[in-house]
């Protein structure tokens, strides 16, 4: 850790880098932004923005259930619940013939209402209300380790499975004819989104987490000409808004998550302006 801190101080010789919490936040952003960006490329291609939004909302229920069951580590409860929720949501989405957005909305509303009710009942709502907006300036070493491991897992999965995901997103029957195990890969994909979202939700917040997945990829999609370009721009946009958001929030004293999302939003509108005609 010391080495990383020293490197960061050398690269960014600014006043804000004197604080450990700023260094941690910066490392966290560098760790998770690219992962969110690449996951986002497929979420946007598959028109799953609403799906990932519902996943984020399920965190609240995850916390509540974890508490009721007495799971000491909130993260574990949340991640387990999110995995079950993601698989269930995926199953129902594939089963229904009518609008998937309706069914996702039903799940999403129930998850958030159930979470609120359970937390309020046990008198713990205030303690966990921080999860709604997140706090990236208060990161623990364990959390960072989790994020690091999850990021590696996503990268490995992406390297070996992206081509298959790409075919599935075009047409699942076509993918099947090419010998791709559509259901398995689709399920692993949503589980990875669930894990990534849950690990970073305490930093970014339930209300904003989805924008981290959607905005960089959506912006990149406006201007990218091929898959390589699409990924590269998404990662650059994501890192840029993350890092600049952190620095601006330090000087303006505004919650970091909201600044990051605002910058991502501005980038989106700029790319929309330059959209391929």
């Amino acid at each position, binding site marked *: 850790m010391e080495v990383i801190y020293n490197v960061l101080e050398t690269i960014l010789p600014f006043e804000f880098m004197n604080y450990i919490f700023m260094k941690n936040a910066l490392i966290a952003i560098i760790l998770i932004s690219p992962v969110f960006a*690449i996951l986002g490329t497929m979420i946007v291609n598959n028109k799953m923005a609403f799906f990932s939004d519902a996943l984020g909302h399920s965190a609240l229920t995850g916390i509540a259930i974890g508490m009721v069951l007495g799971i000491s580590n909130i993260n574990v409860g949340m991640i387990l619940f999110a995995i079950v929720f993601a698989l269930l949501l995926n199953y129902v989405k594939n089963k229904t013939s009518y609008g998937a957005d309706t069914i996702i909305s039903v799940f999403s509303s129930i998850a958030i209402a159930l979470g609120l009710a359970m937390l309020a009942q046990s008198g713990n709502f205030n303690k966990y209300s921080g999860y709604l907006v997140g706090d990236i300036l208060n990161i623990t070493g364990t959390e960072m380790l989790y994020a690091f491991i999850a990021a590696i897992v996503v990268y490995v999965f992406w390297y070996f499975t992206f081509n*298959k995901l790409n075919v599935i*997103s075009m047409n699942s029957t*076509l993918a099947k004819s090419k010998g791709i195990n559509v259901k398995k890969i689709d399920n692993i994909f949503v589980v990875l989104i669930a894990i990534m979202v849950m690990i970073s939700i305490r930093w970014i917040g339930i209300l904003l987490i989805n924008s981290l997945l959607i905005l960089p990829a959506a912006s990149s999609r406006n201007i990218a000409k*091929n898959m390589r370009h699409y990924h590269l721009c998404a990662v650059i946009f994501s890192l840029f808004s993350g890092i600049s958001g952190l620095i601006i929030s330090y000087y303006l004293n505004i919650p970091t998550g909201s600044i990051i999302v605002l910058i991502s939003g501005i980038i989106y509108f700029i790319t929309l302006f330059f*959209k391929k005609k």
Partner: protein
Amino acid sequence: MEKACGLHCTKINHIGVKFGKDVILKDINIHVHCGELTVIIGRNGAGKSTLLKAILGEIEHTGNITFVDQKDNIAEKIKIGYVPQKLNIEKHMPTTVYDMFASCISKVPVFLKKDKKIYEEIKEHLKIFGADMLIDKSMGDLSGGELQRVLIAIATKPTPNLLILDEPVSGIDKNGTKDFYKIINKLKTEYDMSIILVSHDLELANKYADKVILLDRTVIKEGTPKEVFNSLEFKNRFGTIEI
């Protein structure tokens, strides 16, 4: 690729599909030979798309599909190529024809780099269908006819034993349709594969099919286009038509 010899036979045996209590397909038996174009017709909801999904193993079904080389009567594992009716595409999307094609045949992740060898290979194969100049175009920017040629190219690499096309000529103009059947004819005669095509275009089925199958939950009638179109079963469903 070998030329069609007429000795490879794909047998679709006793296919049945149920969704809950609804019987969608019942006891379907179809035999197709290489070098033969079989057109499946039927009204909406007759189970045409479901049959294709069952053949591809995408949905649960009873029965099985076997592929036999009648020269030595040895059953082999069947390779199926599929041309879908619709794709999840949008104008200007960042998936090029190369990205899509390479995703189907290569292990090198397409987001990382363009593999020169694969690129040439794809271009070469697209050329057969007169689509090599489309390789760097976005999938979303292709015309109906172009998209179809690309999809047929994708479905025929590697060469399948059975090529299935789902409503391939919807949304394509007359010239495009003619070109399409030219390609099918070429595949039929020059390559060793059977072709099943699902269509509601009866006129074209009459003109190009070697065999027509009238489907309504099960095989109602099969035979040459003439036999099927003149049958009572056909007239009951489509009325008398002038072809």
